[in-house]
């Protein structure tokens, strides 16, 4: 009845004036700039476009992977092999990046750029006077916040390696702690970090409130860099880092305290799977969820050199039982993955075409999200 009446009115309107009567649009305010909440919903991720084709113009895009509309929330710049980390305590985002006074030449300036989460304005910068920040293809393990986000740890590489400690309250650079022979930053304890070393060992350094070194540990070699190296991109579950080897071994390391504890290894693959050369690989190819599950991008027929090409499946392991509990066949091969911290977690896949495929953690395909033309979002950060 209501529907008929409505149709009748519509017909009448069209008959008389060809167009329905609608309110005239009002002038809209200028200028108008959108803002974001100071605390982001847990379905939002940060997709770091490393932009190999124009490395001085990378970006970190903020994306709601649960949304079917308005999924792209905004972005911040990230120049020349930048690194990114979100504060979970302060409404701040940090980018370690490098600029040149004439774009690609001239005077170099390394900085920590600090953004406000609500406005995405660059509210402060801290210059790194030695211009020695590591320029390595982005990962999560070169810029880290520790001790309730009080200290920002910045990897330096010249190729001598060290870790710069910045006080996030003051922006002061407190110290630079050498880690000769080792590389990368894996938080260990409240005020400390560990690094993997070229000899197959691990180094760990703890520091005090002034950034000065208080403890140092040299863990002797526990894996063979030549025969089966550990990837340098572990997945964290709590304070345990799950390092994976090229040939599918799992090496958990307990980093709850400043002195790393090397835990027993286990394997991702059965004997048959090992014979088929199922191996982990890709870029950010391993992550975890809130239920102590480990997600790993796997490829069949692995060989010397296949370890960065991604894979056709994601395998899910229960880290308690060390058993595989799920095997997700992907629509398109994965290069990097992340799992959101949402109540209903989502599996985000950067496919090898550099678009984002979103799945449930059961492997049900949800949606495709483009980060932008010609982007390379190979590092995905869930909300911390």
């Amino acid at each position: 009845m209501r529907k008929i009446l409505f149709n009748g009115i519509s017909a009448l309107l069209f008959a008389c004036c060809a167009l329905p009567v609608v309110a005239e649009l009002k002038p809209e305010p200028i200028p108008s700039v959108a803002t974001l909440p100071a605390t982001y919903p847990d379905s939002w991720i940060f997709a770091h476009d490393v932009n190999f084709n124009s490395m001085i113009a990378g970006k970190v895009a903020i994306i709601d992977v649960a949304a079917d509309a308005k999924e792209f929330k905004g972005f911040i710049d990230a120049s020349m092999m930048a690194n990114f980390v979100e504060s979970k305590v302060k409404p701040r985002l940090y980018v370690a990046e490098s600029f040149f006074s004439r774009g690609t030449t001239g005077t170099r300036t390394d900085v920590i750029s600090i953004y406000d989460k609500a406005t995405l304005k660059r509210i402060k910068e801290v210059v790194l006077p030695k211009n020695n920040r590591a320029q390595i293809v982005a990962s999560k393990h070169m810029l880290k916040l520790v001790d309730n986000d009080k200290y920002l740890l910045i990897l330096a590489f010249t190729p001598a390696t060290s870790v710069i400690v910045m006080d996030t309250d003051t922006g002061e650079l407190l110290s630079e702690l050498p880690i000769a022979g080792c590389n990368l930053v894996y938080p260990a304890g409240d005020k400390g970090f560990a690094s993997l070393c070229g000899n197959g060992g691990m180094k760990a350094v703890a520091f005090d409130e002034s950034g000065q070194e208080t403890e140092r540990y040299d863990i002797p070699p526990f894996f063979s860099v030549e025969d089966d190296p550990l990837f340098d991109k572990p997945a964290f579950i709590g304070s345990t880092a799950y390092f994976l080897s090229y040939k599918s071994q799992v090496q958990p390391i307990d980093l709850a305290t400043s002195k790393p504890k090397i835990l027993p290894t286990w394997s991702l693959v059965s004997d048959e799977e090992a014979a088929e050369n199922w191996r982990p690989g890709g870029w950010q190819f391993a992550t975890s969820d809130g239920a102590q599950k480990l997600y790993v991008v796997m490829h069949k027929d692995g060989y010397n050199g296949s370890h960065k090409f991604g894979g056709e499946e994601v395998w899910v392991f229960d880290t308690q039982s060390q058993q595989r509990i799920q095997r997700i066949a992907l629509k398109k091969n994965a290069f990097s993955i992340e799992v959101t911290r949402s109540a209903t977690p989502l599996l985000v896949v950067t496919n090898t075409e550099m678009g984002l495929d979103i799945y449930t953690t059961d492997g049900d395909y949800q949606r495709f999200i483009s980060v932008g033309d010609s982007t390379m979002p190979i590092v995905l950060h869930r909300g911390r």
Partner: protein
Amino acid sequence: MKFLDKLMERSSRKVAQNTSRRHMLTNLSKLMVGAAAIPLLPVARASEATGGYPGVGKQVSGLDGDPGDPTSCDYWRYCAIDGFLCSCCGGTASSCPPGTEMSPITWIGTCRNPADGKDYIISYNDCCGKTSCGRCLCNRNENDKPVYRPQANNDINWCLGTSSSVYTCSTGVVLGVAVDG
């Protein structure tokens, strides 16, 4: 349509050639990082039935009498736009993405709203101060004039009078109904 046919013919032929495992791996070596070059054919990108962009969620403006999808190049306000649509970038058809600055100086188009059949004056304010958004690149040129008539030209970077002149994306702001249709 000829160029579409040719393009597809070529792509299909190439794929047919590419059957060996060795090639698959060779290809991957180029793909993994090379895919930067965006995997989507422009024909694929542009051929959505709705006129939208793949991997971009459809929107409505939410205003009565403002029909269409602000993330589509087809959207009525965009009749003379040239750039990345801010609607796809964290802004809307009439607001800039967070952290950018809206240009106070701009150029003007006149677009017909299909909802009321009226011609509206649209102000194509650029948003400035971050790198190119990179989503929903759209170029339409209804009544666009050459750059010697700047107020009617969309090739000019209108990030003028902003603290940075780096272009991020474009809006289409309703200023009012055009007096002279």
